């Protein structure tokens, strides 16, 4: 406080006479309250599914196939279907996604071509999942003649998750310090040797984290597989990639809406929902933990 004429406040007023600002208090508490909405909803839904689903969950439930037109029995082929869909999808898309990320981070030169690649990744990320389903139907199911099959569904999911894999991998590659590249090149290695021996190993944890989070997204998707892979019922585990499969999200949808015994199969619906959530959120949690560990570990 400046001493002098016109300054009528004694210094201690700063401490003792701080007025409570009504407007500030109102808005801050409003935001505090609203800020928790998402978390509260998540917890409510989780509790709801968990409490109802845990009754249905048992060893038999996850290791036995459904019986009596799916009103009893387990969901083994459903779980296997989802796992197969995600694994084939990831095996197909990770090499393409990571290579694209290497292109963007290491080889691309500014200009029209780079802009068009970035633009299409950005646009692909915003395309609705049901549109990917239509694309998969038209291309993989009909044009390539895969039929409604594991392969068609995995490819459709792969196309859908491509932008996500590219951007997480690109981020991981760009996070590798420039000095590592410099050090390697100064040893007399080529650009590709530097990428292969130094950049990619250093970026690998980040790339894998992105892949795990991407897998979680893929496992929970319904719309892209509805007309490309998912079957209402298959008697067992598929014997080839050209057979349709059952999948957890589609199973929930089918039992809850289209089945003839909607009320009767409620426990199975809850159990399937809980299994799906454990799978998806479990992988998410692993990804989040891995990522925060990497942040701590980065000493360079």
């Amino acid at each position, binding site marked *: 406080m400046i001493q002098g004429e016109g300054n009528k406040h004694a210094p201690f007023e700063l401490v003792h006479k701080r007025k409570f*600002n009504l407007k*500030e208090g109102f*808005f801050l508490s*409003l*935001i505090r309250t*609203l*800020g*928790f*909405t*998402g*978390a509260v*909803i*998540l*917890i409510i*839904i989780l509790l*709801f*599914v968990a409490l109802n689903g845990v009754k249905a969950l048992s060893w038999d439930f996850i290791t036995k196939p459904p019986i009596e037109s799916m009103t009893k029995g387990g969901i083994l082929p459903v779980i296997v279907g989802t796992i197969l869909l995600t694994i084939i999808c990831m095996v197909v898309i990770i090499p*393409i996604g990571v*290579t*694209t990320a*290497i*292109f963007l981070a290491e*080889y*691309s030169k500014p200009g029209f071509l780079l802009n*068009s*690649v970035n633009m*299409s990744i950005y646009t*692909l990320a*915003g*395309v*609705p*999942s*049901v*549109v990917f*389903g*239509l*694309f998969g139907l*038209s291309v993989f199911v009909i*044009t390539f003649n895969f039929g409604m099959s594991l392969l068609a569904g995995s490819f459709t999911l792969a196309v859908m998750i491509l932008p996500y894999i590219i951007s997480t991998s690109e981020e991981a590659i760009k996070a590798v310090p420039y000095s590592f590249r410099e050090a390697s090149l100064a040893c007399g290695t*080529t650009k*590709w040797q530097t990428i292969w021996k130094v950049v990619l190993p250093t970026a690998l944890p980040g790339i894998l984290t992105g892949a795990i989070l991407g897998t979680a*997204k893929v*496992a*929970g*998707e*319904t*719309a892209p597989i*509805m*007309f490309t892979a998912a079957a209402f019922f298959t008697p067992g585990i598929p014997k080839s990639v050209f057979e349709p499969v059952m999948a957890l*999200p589609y199973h*929930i*949808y089918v039992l*809850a809406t289209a089945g003839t015994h909607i009320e009767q199969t*409620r426990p199975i*619906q809850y159990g399937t929902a809980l299994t*799906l*959530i454990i799978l998806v*959120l479990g992988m*998410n949690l692993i990804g*989040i933990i891995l990522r925060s560990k990497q942040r701590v570990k980065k000493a360079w």
Partner: protein
Amino acid sequence: MRKYIPLKWQTKEKFVEIIISSVGFVSVIVLLLIAFFLFKEAFEVFYRAGFYHVILGTQWYPTSDPPKFGMLPLIAGTLTVTGLTAIIAIPLGLATAIYIAEIAHYKIREFLKPLIEMLASFPSVVLGFFGMVIIAPILSNWLSSLLAERLPELLRNTSLPFISTTLADFCYNKFFISSGLNMFTAALMLTVRAIPVISSIAEDALTAVPRTYREASYALGAGKWETIYKVVVPASVSGLSVAVILGIGTIIGETMIVLMVAGGAAVIPHWIFDPIRPMPSAIAAEMAEAAHGSLHYHALFGVGAILFLITLVLSLISDFISKKYRAIKIGEKV
């Protein structure tokens, strides 16, 4: 170091670069293929039924004889439910972002951020399921009887001139919910889907605001709310609008929630408790029964093409805004 051309490693490097660059263009090709196949399959319906009849037709009876492919009810369903969701979700999403980025204590933030992220990857089929078994019954049994029966009764008993008749009738007419599966339920569940999308992008935008701005504001004696409202939010307004646009894109494209809880009636809605059939749910519900190559099949691709165009435009707008925004950020660093 003798000069010998071409060196073995140089040839190999060139080879690797060509392969990587070609794979790099896969995403462009995929996008073009999606557009090509959608429009190829959609062309037939616009050609045979007439573009304006399809877009502006008010009757969607794909299985009647003759079939009618007026998409207006579907488009109206999508637009209304998106609008209603946006009204609820945008304030919630932005508030979450502001809370996490500006107000929350470090420890709460570390706890809240992963939760929001998990909400983002929460399977939408489970959200739809939750809406069906919990929200819909609550609306049709509890809320409906409260607002359309108890409240009018109460109002009538007041015997006040205007309130006892007009308002009571209004409540009775407007809040009677015959089925819990309607636009409002869908909007509630879509809100859950949109909050994490909006809040995570908005949070990035807020944290990108340089700390010096906040310090300058505090140094001038501004309070926390004034600093947020007058300094941080204006400085990040382009990033926040990108968050809102991408959030709207998510709402428009979300399929399973509207498929399961929106009610499925392909009519133009008049009120928030009307059942609707937004575009994604029409595709998802009808594709299974539409024979490959039938006009119905092509019509559903037509719906998909419109959906694709809407999200394409939203992506282009948000990309444009975020490019400008990035330019400003670089400018600030220099």
